[in-house]
């Protein structure tokens, strides 16, 4: 830490320990990486074991919806980054619009995901379903991983959408402002993390055919 010692005493002067807050967020993201890491570990082991089945199952994924979702999420990452840049320049209104755009795109991602899952469930492919259990072991595992990994990722997207909505509210009320935007920046970090997880999920489930 290059900062002068004692400078971080937030209770001392009432000033906000910007570096400390960001550090806490990065630590939290480390834990998130390890959380998803457990799933990626299982994926790699099962894929190694059942390479053929994984290859075949991935063909059943809807690559169009998957690609649209990737585009939506990547764009939302751009808008949240721009909203932070706008906040730094003190442009409250454009920051608000960009945050709103992020929320809408996050919601759109979830809606698309809903239709994707819905289509699979309607043809009887969901964990422990008779149709799925009749398939090969690798396929059972592939779709098990598909539901668990995209499901937990979706949960993170949902949390992100809710948190960004709060940030939007805070920005409107100006408790987030040009001097004090650590919360918004941390939310941005979280949103980029959610995005990065998807960047790995997309090839692993849609592109490996």
């Amino acid at each position: 830490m290059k900062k002068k010692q004692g400078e971080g005493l937030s209770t001392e002067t009432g000033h906000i320990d910007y570096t400390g807050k960001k550090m806490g967020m990065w630590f939290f993201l480390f834990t998130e990486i390890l959380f998803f890491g457990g799933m990626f570990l299982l994926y790699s082991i099962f894929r190694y074991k059942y390479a053929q089945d994984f290859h075949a199952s991935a063909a059943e994924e809807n690559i169009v919806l998957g690609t649209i979702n990737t585009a939506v999420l990547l764009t939302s990452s751009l808008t949240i980054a721009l909203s932070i840049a706008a906040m730094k320049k003190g442009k409250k209104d454009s920051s608000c619009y960009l945050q709103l755009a992020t929320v809408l795109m996050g919601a759109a991602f979830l809606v698309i995901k809903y239709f994707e899952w819905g289509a699979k469930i309607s043809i009887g492919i969901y964990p422990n379903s008779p149709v799925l259990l009749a398939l090969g072991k690798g396929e059972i595992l592939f779709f098990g991983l598909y539901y668990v990994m995209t499901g937990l990722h979706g949960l993170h997207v949902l949390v992100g959408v809710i948190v960004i909505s709060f940030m939007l509210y805070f920005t409107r009320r100006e408790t987030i402002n040009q001097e004090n935007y650590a919360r918004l920046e941390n939310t941005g970090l979280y949103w980029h993390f959610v995005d990065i997880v998807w960047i790995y999920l997309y090839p692993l489930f849609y592109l490996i055919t």
Partner: protein
Amino acid sequence: MVSEGMGDVTAGFYERTKKYRWVIAEWMMSTDHKRIGVMYLIALLSFFSVGVVMGFIIRLSLLAPGWLADQQTYNEFFTIHGVIQIFLFIIPGIPVAFGNIFLPILIGAKDVAFPKVNRLSWWLYVTGAVLVFLSVFIHGRPPDTGWTFYAPYSIQTPANISTAVMGVFVLGFSSILTGLNFVTTIHRLRAPGMGWFRMPAFSWTLYATGWVQMLATPVLAITLLFIFLGRFLGVGFFDPTKGGDPILYEHLFWMYSHPAVYIMVLPAMGIISEVVPVFSRRSLFGYVAVCMSALGIAIVGYAVWGHHMFTSGMSDTARVIFSFVTFLVAVPSGIKIFNWVSTLYKGSIQVDAPLLFAISFIFLFSIGGLTGLIIGALATNLHLHGTYFIVGHFHYVMFGGAGFSIIAGLHYWFPKITGRMYDERFAKLGWLNLFVGFNILYFSMFVLGFLGMPRRYFDYPPQYHAGHVISTMGSWFLAIGLVIIFANLIRSIFKGERAPMNPWGGKTLEWTIPSPLPRENFQEIPVITRGPYSYEEEAR
């Protein structure tokens, strides 16, 4: 927080702030690290007592198998005993109690970096504890899988595994937040002049522990979630009929749970590193080595999980590597032991209760550590893995290690937390019973295990009877010891003499402020100009 301490500057931290009508609300809503720490401490010791009673009953039942508990009840008892002692007591243990109360003070800060997150972490801990206890009392059978929740049994058993697993999941989240908070605190809130190598060793161990909490616990979280999903949705990652693999569960579980033993024992070593210098009036010998070995243990500790699975089915190459790395991790522990002993050497030793417990820690942890090498070696492990030898080793490191250190810390910091002195004679009497009982109870387990007594069995052939009777008798002494120790401490809260600011002649910052702790840690943030244990400098 500034707002909480605006009034009376001489007020103790436990005095009412009148912010809420109810005392309990005032404490539960408090973001003061000292209050949160004290609440944790009370909760931990309560759960510890429940766990001890369960262990006591397990031992009683083994006097004559079946007279007290049938097989199913026995399984449930050792499961709940394990879950409580591991997840509710010893993993959160020292960081959340002593860490919360003293870390900010030791580094000269007003509070932790994120006081509200700290409070959230406490609420999560309470929630997790409620869930764990619900799993015992709600309709259906209490968990009977052992504290490890091994698949596939944990997915198939009709017992209330889901509730217990959710409880542990929530506790894990609480643990992550505490670790994150402490690491950030140590990075950001050290007082002016408090360089990294002027921090007391306890803060260093909390720093290493914080990293392990952050980097290991999420793996447990996802693993437990798989159990949960397996039970509710039939996702079969650990179910061979669905292509899964139960061994994977063991890998994922121990990937967390081995580093977790360092979550338990690293801060314990920190307490010992505080107590030993104070009671021998010498600087901590090899201070830098002690601090660095904490980091060393934390790092190497990640790469040894496989030694829990030598008999589970793993390639020979993997087993040899895991065995080798297990030997490596003993090195930094050894460094610490030698440094503590060297600190005592030629010191002006004052044998008060905290030092007695600390020295017992060194002795018991050495036995625990050395027997760990016996079972860390491949060939002997195959013979001893499924036996009482493991139970003995485990209790020597966990109870003899972390447990004794918590009791040492309890006596050492008792005057600072409560503002009273405990009764030294009863403390020593309690120690004697505890120490003797402990060794009878757990050393006979080494012998039993070496003779082949399998662990987790409710029944045994007659040739093990004598060993079991001796072990059970040890548990009586141990229980008497604990009763004396805690009765003494509880009585002293009300009847003890008023404690002075610095009863032990300690050099760290907590001894420069009043006993009991004031609401505001420091009237003025101290400027640090010396190392943490400057006994020699002073003598010159």
